[in-house]
Structure formats: C-alpha cells, structure tokens
C-alpha cells in the first residue's frame, strides 16, 4: 500500500500533540494548566476558539476535576481527552484508577515532569511511572514525531472493543515539549478515517437503556472485575501491534513495543525511554564507528510490559544497561530496571545493570552514555542496586 503524502511542519512537542488533537477533534476536552503541558492546551484552545475543532472544552478548577469530568463525559459516550504533567497527574491519581477500572477509553498526553518536593518543573518520569499500576496503557515518545503518531494511535488502541482502556502518551517535559523539530503530519481526512467514530458500548446518555456506572462491588464480584481488567491489559499488546502496523502502512512509520537500534549483533545494549533514547543512539553511532558492537533498545510500550518480546530482543547481548529517569525508592532500582530484570529471569542469563539518571531535568549527554557502554565492557555492573548516574557525590 502506498503511504500518504505528508505535510512537513516545524513544531514543538506540545504543538505536535495539539496538532494531533486538532485532527482527532475529540468531542470533549477537559483542561487545567500546569507547566510544561500548558502550551499544548493553549494551542488546542486556539483551535477551539477559531472553530477548527468542534470540541466542547471544560476549563475545570483542578486536575482532579479534569479527570473526573473526563470520566463523566467518556461514560456518557464522548471521545474524550485531557493532558497534564507532574503534580497534576498526582492530583488526578484517584480518578486515574477510576477511569481505567470503568474501562473508559480516554487519551491523555502526559508531559513528563518531576514530582515535588522540592518543586521542580523539569523532566523526569516520576509522574507517569508513579501510576504505572493504574491500569492505563502507557506509550513513551522519543520526539515530536512520536508524540503526534502515538496520540493518533492511542485513540484506536483505547477504543478497541476488546480493550477499552485509557492510554497515556508521555513525552519529556521541555526536552521534547518545548523543542522545535520536524514533524510530518498526515492529511486531516486520513486521520479521521484511521480513528473512525467512537461507538460506545453502554453510554450513559442512552436514556432508553439506563445503565448504572460505578456501583458498590464487594467480595463477591470485585475480584472477577479486576481479572477482566487484567485480561484486557494482557490483550492490549496484540492490538497495539496491529494498530502500529496499520499506522505504518498509512504513514510509512510502523510502531511496535520497542525500537531496536543496532542491536542485532550488539554485545552491549542500553535500554532507555523517551528523549534519552535519541542521545543513546548518537552515542552508539560514535562507538560503532570506533568498532564497538553496541546498540540501543528504546522501549515505547511500558504498559502492558512486553516481557517475552523484550527478552527475546535482548537475548544476544553480553550485558545490558537499563536507564531509569525516576527513582522509585524501592531500594533496588528504578521501575524499568526491575521490569527488565524480571522479564529476563529464567529466560536468559544476562547481566542487567541499573542506572537512575536525569532526575529533575539533570542533563544527560553522548559522553555520559558512552561511559555507560564503557562500564558494561569493563564488567562494572550495578546489578543488585542501581547506580545514581550524573549526580554529585
């Protein structure tokens, strides 16, 4: 199938997200300001004010109400979106779980920012990693192009009748949200056709078939409902892959669970999420030209966690470094480190070295990544406890 002609734009990550939202034209958007997500909603509000979308905006008084309104509107039958960062996501927390547990296909860009205290507006993944167990699908984006592509795919994944789970599309605050880069966008009509109309299963607004949302569910049924939810998350992998393939046929950019860069013959692989994967690729390029067999695995889908496929992709490596942009405070290492190690357990005997880096927006560069490859080559592993990397001692 011939891919469609794109329009090439120069957009910040936030503008890229807003552009995807313009094309999706959700029926309801609830919004509350928080840095660094603000510009995404500024841009989208301009689209609404100019009549470029038919969206009804709910300009709420808090993120808690933003997610609450999203739950109401999505249960009512609308296609619904919001966006947030950091403390905003933390304030939503309770209702983030309600959204997933009521199987409401809400799509939410999360512009990653550190959590307080101390207050810090810059990037780390503490916010979205903190709600990794909330029942939302999580897609991490490396750059503005992926922000755009992931948001469009998220609508299809979330609204799949066999899944019906909300999706978080994350991207790094400031590093991606405020950096202008090339984004190839699909024609509006192609996006509308790709996502189709939402056909809600039991909308609250079907007044002739009244339904009760959110009943009290005790010992005799709650567990069964949680199992169904877990099964939906397990089934989501196949849908994410199918949607990624179909999107590839449309755009020429196919998406899977992760992106393998020079890994097929690599001895040493660095696994990273978000913008750091781009930095790691640059480091791998430099080391490859010096003859080192190194590669990068960029994880896109963190929930559901693609354990089996990921383990297979890492199987040939001599050692792996996992970079976590959140602490986790487990005393062991960050959440990605623990999931990767668990995925390899009893499958492959490969050393996994954990690094916690970049908290509160602390920079990471090509030389730093190269030094991690150096650690792996020298057999200096952080297997039992992840290292804090790039921090003053």
């Amino acid at each position, binding site marked *: 199938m011939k891919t469609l002609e794109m329009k090439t734009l120069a957009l910040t990550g936030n503008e890229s997200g807003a552009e995807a939202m313009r094309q999706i034209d959700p029926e309801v958007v609830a919004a509350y300001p928080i840095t660094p997500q603000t510009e995404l909603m500024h841009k989208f509000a301009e689209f609404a004010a100019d009549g470029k979308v038919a969206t009804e905006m709910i300009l709420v008084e808090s993120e808690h109400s933003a997610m609450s309104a999203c739950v109401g*509107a999505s249960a009512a*039958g609308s296609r619904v979106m919001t966006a947030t960062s950091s403390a905003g996501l933390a304030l939503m927390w309770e209702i983030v779980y309600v959204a997933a547990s009521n199987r409401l296909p809400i799509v939410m860009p999360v512009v990653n920012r550190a959590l307080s205290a101390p207050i810090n507006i810059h990037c780390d993944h503490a916010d979205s990693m903190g709600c990794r167990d909330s029942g939302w699908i999580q897609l991490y984006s490396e750059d503005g192009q992926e922000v755009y592509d992931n948001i469009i795919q998220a609508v299809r994944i979330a609204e799949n009748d066999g899944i019906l789970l909300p999706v978080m599309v994350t991207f790094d605050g400031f590093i991606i949200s405020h950096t202008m880069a090339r984004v190839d966008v699909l024609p509006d009509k192609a996006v509308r056709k790709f996502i189709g109309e939402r056909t809600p299963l039991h909308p609250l607004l079907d007044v002739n078939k009244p339904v009760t949302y959110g009943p009290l569910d005790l010992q005799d049924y709650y567990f069964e409902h949680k199992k169904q939810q877990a099964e939906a998350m397990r089934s989501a992998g196949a849908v994410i892959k199918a949607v990624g393939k179909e999107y590839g046929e449309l755009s020429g950019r196919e998406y899977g669970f992760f992106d393998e860069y020079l890994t097929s013959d690599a001895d040493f692989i660095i696994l990273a999420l978000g913008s750091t994967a781009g930095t790691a690729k640059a480091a791998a390029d430099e080391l490859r030209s010096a003859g080192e067999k190194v590669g990068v695995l960029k994880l896109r889908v963190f929930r559901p966690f693609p354990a089996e496929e990921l383990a297979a992709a890492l199987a040939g490596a001599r050692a792996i470094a996992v970079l976590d942009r959140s602490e986790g405070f487990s005393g062991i290492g960050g959440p990605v480190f623990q999931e990767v190690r668990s995925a390899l357990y009893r499958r492959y005997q490969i050393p996994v070295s954990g690094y916690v880096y970049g908290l509160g927006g602390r920079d990471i560069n090509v030389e730093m990544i190269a030094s991690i490859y150096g650690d792996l080559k020298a057999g200096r592993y952080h297997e039992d406890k992840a290292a804090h990397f790039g921090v003053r001692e």
Partner: protein
Amino acid sequence: MALNLKELSKKRELLSPGHRACSGCGSILAIRQVMMAVEGPVVVGFATGCMEVVTTVYPYTAWRVPYIHNAFENVAATMSGVETAYRAARKQGKISEDVKFIAFGGDGGTYDIGLQSLSGAMERGHDLLYVCYNNEAYMNTGIQRSSSTPFAAATSTCPVGDVELGKTQHSKDLTAIMAAHDIPYVAQATPHNWRDLIGKVKKALAIRGPKFINISASCFRGWRLPPHLSVDVSRLAVETCFWPLYEVENGEWKLNYKPKEKLPIAELFKLQGRFSHIFEEANRELLDQAQAFVDRKWEDLLKRTGDKVQKVLA
C-alpha cells in the same frame, strides 16, 4: 401534572423499591421526592455516601434512570463531564431528547471534600441541578463530624467526653455560599414538606444553568432519634427556624414558610440523643449558644427575604 398526592401516587418511581436504606432514613425520602419531580429523561450522579451504597450494590441497582458514581469529592465535576458530553452530542445531532442532569451528594461530599468540585461546576454554568442530602455528619463511615454538623452535637470524632462536649463550631452556611455564586436558583427544603420540596425541584429543573438545593434529611442512627420521628424532626427543624425554607431566584431571596410561633431550639434538640448532654444543668450554656446562633441566622435571613412569605410556584 398537578402537584397532589393522588397524581404522584400514579407516577412511576424512578428510584425503585428494594434498595437497602434503613427504615426511617430521611435521605432516601428526600431523594425519592426529588425523583418524583422529574418529567422526561434524566441522568443522575452520586457522590460516594450512604445513598450511593444503598441503591447500587452490584449486581443490583435501584435506579431506573442512567446513573453514575465516580468518587467521593467529584460528583459535580463528573456530572459536568456528562452534561458537556450531552451538549456535544446534541450539537452533532446524535441525541434529540431534552435530558436533565441531577448530581446528589451528602453533606460530607458537598460541604467538605466536594466543595471545590461543586463551586467549579456552578461557576462554569453547567445545566445541572445539584442536590445535597444533608444529614449533618459522615453517616456512611460512622457518624464523624462534618462542617455541616451543628454546634454541640456529639459525633464519633467530636464525642462528649470529660473535657470536650461535642462539636465546638457552628455549621457552615453552604446555601448562602452557593447563593454567592450568583447562579439562577438556590433553595433549602426538607422532606416533611413534600409539596415545597417537589415544587422546588420542578422549578429548578425548568431553569437552564446551574442550580443548588440543600435538603435537610434526618439520620436516626447519627442523630440518635427514634426512626419513626425522622419526618417530625424535619418539621421541627423548620418550626424552630433551624432550617428555614427559602429560595434565592436570580439573586432575589424569598421566604417560603414562616412559623406562626418560632419554637425554641430545645424542641428540636431534645428528640435527638446527640444533644442529650446539653440538657444537663451544667451545660445549659451550650443550649443558649445554639439558640443565639439560630436566632442570628434567622434575623439575617429575614433581612434578606423580608417578612413576606412566598409559596413555591413551580
């Protein structure tokens, strides 16, 4: 439909029998009366609380209309979302019915934890009626004090002890706070005067925009009251001017009922075990303080409404 008992008795109940409310529950009476006022399609939302729990124990529901419960503090925001989705669907021609929206919360979910959500929804102007069933404490979780609990009342978290004698603060005037939002309609009601209550709900539902009705509803468990007195106690709340019946329509304050003879607050409190300590001789000062507060609030109200009684004309 004429507002009389004969006609109401023929009406299909939207809240069906078989729910699990206590016999003698004032809140379920209030909600039943609210639903009796509804004509045509309606979506209801509930904050977490007694009435949510007793009407929807999975796999059963007492609701014959679409119903959503989200969490404790957010029924107003949740119903903002439902109402906005409705406007979006209307705009796209996906729905043609004229649908009404009612959010219900107890005093905990309305006066306290849900106040921000309520204020936001009212300020944004959603076409939504918010009904507080106010039983003056957190009854669902075991009778803890709320900002609606009256002065001197004993609760699980402000019990009568050797040093403390029940709640030390007066209740918050939420109805006035909602009136200060300058929304089109605000009212107080109680289920003993069903004609007034149903009339107010009918009137509210006929108005476009945000509306708020605060209903005093007894809880015999929390108030330490014989269950058969749950309606009488509402009448006494009005006759003592503890809970005046009034409405604020587009900024105009109207008194809907004035007792011929204002009864002392003791008449209301003496029925309720939560106030028994204030009738001990050593604690009479508490009763005086409670009376003084009611007197001041009543005088304030009369300044706003005038002496003239205006019946609710829905």
